[in-house]
Structures are given as structure tokens and as C-alpha cells.
């Protein structure tokens, strides 16, 4: 196993071994560069992932029963939350992210949607939305298309090209056929057909067939919130990190919590300060740093990296680090059906509808999204939150309802736009500290009125879909402001103007020539809130450019 000395200035330190960090590590190390990846979480393996809902179930999803094994532990790293700046922030578990080697790609569902062409141009196409920072990206879909394709083929994505009439153009089909349809997918397809909508096989980051030495999905059903025992989920842990390590030029250093990016007297990055598992501090020297710590921790780390040269925080001359925070908006509806679906088996999602992806002026508000059907529960979570509101939560009637409905319930889940507001942001809490004595992550967030209208619109479409599919009974979770989030976006937005953005179109900090931010923080808009595919395409594109710049000597150390 490759080990680098702290005092040796490696070519690159990458902060975070997740969906983006794993990709960048593989690309830089295979291009010949020395790389140290500092990951705050543990290095787990397939044998660590077991079917234990009490242990692994993700806590973001109410009723918060998990132990935060794969994600950030809020008892050690508290968040605080307030809706608006004048409010007093209170302790919460608001922002959640993967905290292990592989990051969120270890426990994610595997929905793998490309953005559409319009996602990069919505300010031009739609116009301004009052009270928001809606802006065009400095890149287009065409710029990113080769890297979407690269991500799909390198990581291993299952899907059917051409099946979605609303899909953007693609240069290659998916490397693997779609996963087998489940009953939830059949019902979504049935309802969509009746309504004149178009269901298509879900693009999924799970292998439908063996691929590049990895096993195919065995349909055990423990995908979302869990790590895959088979290595069939296309996490960076299973796919590209092993390739990076095989180069002999990449060291993954787990349980290493970065507290500050250090700069020299010229304002260039020269390494990072981090805590080891014993909370001893180290300084890893580096010629350049790539921050892939996610849309909440990346801005937090920059804000904690203040110095005389960077008094507002590193790379923050614009004052926009942490601003324009966006998260996973959507709606959740449920229905029960006559016959057993057994949807606890296999992958979560097998069919998707994107008929309402684009904003439509006829609706009278900005916003769009996509809809999937799934069974969003494991046994305990179903008993606590999966039954309709009129069912008693105790006694014989409760037991009867569990028995009758566990295998007959479908969740219709919409994923919708979230507008970028400067007032929604990540900042450092002035009062609350984490277990290392660092300022806690403070979230300020309130949905824009158009986001509520969009969520309600999709809630109504989802209920229509359940009716059309033949649901015996249907109900919805309330459409309300987010109480927690897992899709963290927009806080170091990409742009051409250093006054209105944090990184350039190649993810280099406008203010620091050897510092890059590559993760959901670069997003200018939210897409339709399935961000992993685009985060990883951006990571491939950024890495491509970083390699070119490093080889041509244009990253000054």
C-alpha cells in the first residue's frame, strides 16, 4: 500500500474520497501524479455491509433510527439550522453526506440522471426569477456530454439509451442493459401510459451484468442507505478507487479530518492541516489541493481557512463561498394496491417519468422535475412511517395493516428544482463547536415560493399517477420546507466572473491558482435534484483539465 510522508509535498492533496474525490484521485494518479486523499470517515469494505436496518439505515429519513455508520455523525459534528438570518439557529441533523471512503456513492439509491441541455441555460431560456440568483452555467451540455459518457462507462451504469423521449443527445449507449423491472415500475408505467406520459427504464448506478471484474446485482434489496456486499453498486469505493490505488501513486488516508487549507505568503496553497484518528494534528504538504468535500463541507473548510491574505475565508473575495445553497426538493406520495409487489427485493427504482422536466410558462411558475416509483422502506421504517394516516399506530389494527400493506405499497417520489437564493447558505456557527473544537456547520434555508409551487404541482401529478395505476388508496406526505437534506449543491458556484462566482469553468478557484473545488458546490442550478451523475461528469471534466494544466506547468505551486 502506498504511503507518503506528511513532509513530502505531493502533487495533489484531495480532500474527500467520495463521488467526486474518488474520480479525481483515479484520473490524477493514472496520469502519473502523486496523490494523497484525506477522507474524514473510515475505509469500509464489502464485508462490513450487512442487512441491519438499526445499524445502517440512514438517519436523514425520518424517523432517524440509524447509527450514522456511513454518514456524518451529528453527535460529533453537530449542525445548526435557521430559516432566515435573523432567526436563532438550533441544533439539528440537517445536512447529511457520505462519510466513508466512497462517500455518498456507497449508500445512495443509484438514480443516475444526466442533466438536460436546458439545465445549463435556464436563466437565458426562462428569464430572471425574482429574489433568486438563477444564472446560466459557464458550460453547456455539449461541453459535459463526453464526460457523462466517460462516467457511465468507467463506473458502470445500467440503462437504455433512447428510451426516454426527453433525454438529451448522447454519444454512446449505456454500457449495461437496464435492471429487471419490478412491480413498482410496472405500476408507474401503467399509470403513465393511461395519462399519456412516458415511463422509461431507470438509469441506475448498479450493475445489471458482471462488468470489469465486478459482480452483477443479486437483487438482495439493500441498496438505498446501505453499502453493497456484492460490489455491484457503482460507488467509487467499488469502481475507481481500487484502480487509483493500484497505480502505486495514490494513498487513501481514512479517518483524516481536514481543518484548514494552508497558504503561503504569495497566496498559494501549500498543504492542509488535518486531525488523525487520535485527534493529533498533522500538516500534509502539497503542490496543489482539490477539495471534494461536498456542497456543505467544502464551503465550511474554505471559511475555516481564513488567514491574513484571505480574511473572509479562502477563495472568498466574492463573498459567495457558502451562498446559493440548494438541496433536494420534491414530494412523496404513497398508494396501496390489490396484489403483492414484494418491492423490498432488488434495486429501488426501475422506471422513471420526465414528462414535466422542463419549466413551462403555462404553469405560471418556474420549476420542473422527474418522478420515480419505488418502495422507500425497510421493515422498521415502514412500521413507523409507511402506513396511511388513518391507520392506528398500535394494537391489532396496526398489526393487521402492517401485514396487509408491507408488500402492497408503492412510493411515488418526485425530484424537483430548487432555486439558488443568496440568503440560503452554509456558514460557520459562532456558538456551536464540533468534537474537534471546530465551528459547527450552520445552515440557513427557506424555500422560494416557486419551489413550493413546483413541489405541490408534482405532488398532484404523483397522486394522479397512483390513481391511473389503479391504487386502492393513496395519500401524501405534507409538502413543506426541508427538515434535512442529502443533496448538497451550489455553495462555490461556477462562473466566468470572479465577482459573481467562486470557481471558474474548470473548477479552479478564481483567487488561488493551485486550488480546485470539485463537487456539488460547483453547481449553478440544481438540475432536477438527482445530482450524482453530474457531479461525477464534472469531476471527470475537471480532472481532465487539471492533468493538462499540471503537465503544461500552468498550476503554480
Amino acid at each position, binding site marked *: 500500500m502506498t504511503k507518503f510522508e506528511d513532509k513530502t509535498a505531493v502533487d495533489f492533496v484531495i480532500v474527500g474520497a467520495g463521488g467526486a474525490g474518488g474520480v479525481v484521485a483515479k484520473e490524477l494518479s493514472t496520469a502519473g501524479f502523486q496523490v494523497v486523499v484525506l477522507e474524514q470517515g473510515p475505509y469500509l469494505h464489502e464485508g462490513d455491509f450487512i*442487512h*441491519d*436496518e*438499526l*445499524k445502517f439505515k440512514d438517519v436523514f429519513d425520518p424517523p432517524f*433510527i440509524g447509527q450514522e455508520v456511513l454518514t456524518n455523525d451529528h453527535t460529533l459534528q453537530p449542525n445548526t439550522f435557521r430559516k432566515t438570518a435573523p432567526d436563532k439557529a438550533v441544533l439539528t441533523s440537517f445536512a447529511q453526506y457520505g462519510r466513508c471512503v466512497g462517500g455518498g456513492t456507497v449508500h445512495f439509491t443509484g438514480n443516475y440522471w444526466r442533466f438536460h441541455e436546458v439545465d445549463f441555460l435556464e436563466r437565458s431560456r426562462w428569464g430572471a426569477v425574482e429574489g433568486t440568483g438563477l444564472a446560466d452555467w459557464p458550460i453547456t451540455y455539449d461541453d459535459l456530454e463526453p464526460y457523462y459518457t466517460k462516467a457511465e462507462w468507467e463506473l458502470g451504469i445500467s440503462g437504455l439509451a433512447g428510451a426516454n423521449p426527453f433525454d438529451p443527445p448522447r454519444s454512446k449507449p449505456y454500457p449495461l442493459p437496464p435492471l*429487471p*423491472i*419490478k*412491480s413498482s*415500475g*410496472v*405500476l408507474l408505467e*401503467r399509470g403513465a401510459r393511461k395519462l399519456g406520459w412516458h415511463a422509461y427504464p431507470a438509469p441506475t448506478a448498479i450493475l445489471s451484468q458482471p462488468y470489469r471484474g465486478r459482480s452483477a446485482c*443479486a*437483487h*438482495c*434489496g439493500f441498496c438505498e442507505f446501505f453499502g453493497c*456486499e456484492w460490489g455491484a453498486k457503482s460507488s467509487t469505493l467499488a469502481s475507481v478507487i481500487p484502480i487509483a490505488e493500484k497505480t502505486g501513486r495514490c494513498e487513501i488516508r481514512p479517518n483524516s479530518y481536514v481543518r484548514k487549507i494552508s497558504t503561503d505568503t504569495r497566496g498559494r496553497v501549500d498543504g492542509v492541516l488535518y486531525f488523525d484518528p487520535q485527534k493529533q494534528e498533522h500538516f500534509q504538504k502539497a503542490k496543489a489541493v482539490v477539495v471534494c468535500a461536498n456542497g456543505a463541507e467544502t464551503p465550511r473548510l474554505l471559511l475555516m481557512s481564513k488567514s491574513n491574505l484571505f480574511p473572509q475565508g479562502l477563495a472568498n473575495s466574492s463573498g459567495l463561498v457558502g451562498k446559493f445553497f440548494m438541496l433536494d426538493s420534491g414530494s412523496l406520495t404513497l398508494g396501496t*394496491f390489490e*396484489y*403483492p*409487489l*414484494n*418491492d*423490498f*427485493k*432488488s434495486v429501488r427504482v426501475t422506471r422513471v417519468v420526465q414528462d414535466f422536466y422542463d419549466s413551462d410558462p403555462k404553469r405560471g411558475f418556474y420549476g420542473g422535475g422527474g418522478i420515480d416509483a419505488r418502495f422507500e422502506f425497510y*421493515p*422498521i421504517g*415502514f*412500521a*413507523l412511517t409507511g402506513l396511511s394516516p388513518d391507520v392506528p399506530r398500535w394494537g391489532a389494527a396496526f*398489526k393487521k395493516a*402492517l*401485514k396487509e400493506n*408491507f*408488500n402492497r405499497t408503492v412510493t411515488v417520489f418526485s425530484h424537483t428544482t430548487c432555486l439558488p437564493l443568496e440568503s440560503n447558505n452554509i456558514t460557520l456557527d459562532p456558538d456551536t463547536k464540533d468534537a474537534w473544537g471546530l465551528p459547527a456547520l450552520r445552515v440557513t434555508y427557506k424555500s422560494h415560493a416557486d419551489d413550493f409551487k413546483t413541489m405541490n404541482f408534482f405532488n398532484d401529478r404523483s397522486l394522479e399517477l397512483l390513481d391511473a395505476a389503479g391504487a386502492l388508496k393513496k395519500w401524501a406526505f405534507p409538502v413543506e420546507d426541508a427538515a434535512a437534506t442529502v443533496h448538497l449543491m451550489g455553495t462555490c458556484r461556477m462562473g466566468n466572473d470572479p465577482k459573481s462566482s467562486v470557481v471558474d469553468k474548470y473548477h479552479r478557484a478564481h483567487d488561488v491558482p493551485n486550488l480546485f473545488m470539485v463537487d456539488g458546490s460547483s453547481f449553478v442550478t440544481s438540475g432536477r435534484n438527482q445530482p450524482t451523475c453530474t457531479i461525477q461528469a464534472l469531476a471527470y471534466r475537471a480532472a481532465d483539465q487539471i492533468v493538462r494544466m499540471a503537465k503544461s506547468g500552468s498550476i503554480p505551486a
Partner: protein
Amino acid sequence: MGYLSHPDYGGNHNQAGWKLIGFEDKMTYAPPFGYYDTEYNKRR
């Protein structure tokens, strides 16, 4: 919660809770999985 948790915790003895609701914990399954996909595949 124990009644529906992993049997190792003790409350779901002999998987009694899982059997009640119709859940099985296996490492592998093969399609078709439920009624609607079985009927769907018959028509194909």
C-alpha cells in the same frame, strides 16, 4: 422496533416480525419479484 429489527437483537425471534409482514432477508433473489412484474413479463 425490535420486533422488526435484525433477529440478532432478540426482539424478532425466529423472524416472527418479518414473517408477519411478509419480509424475507436473503442475499439473492431472481426476477420476477411480485405479482405485477410477473404478469408484465408474461405479456412480453
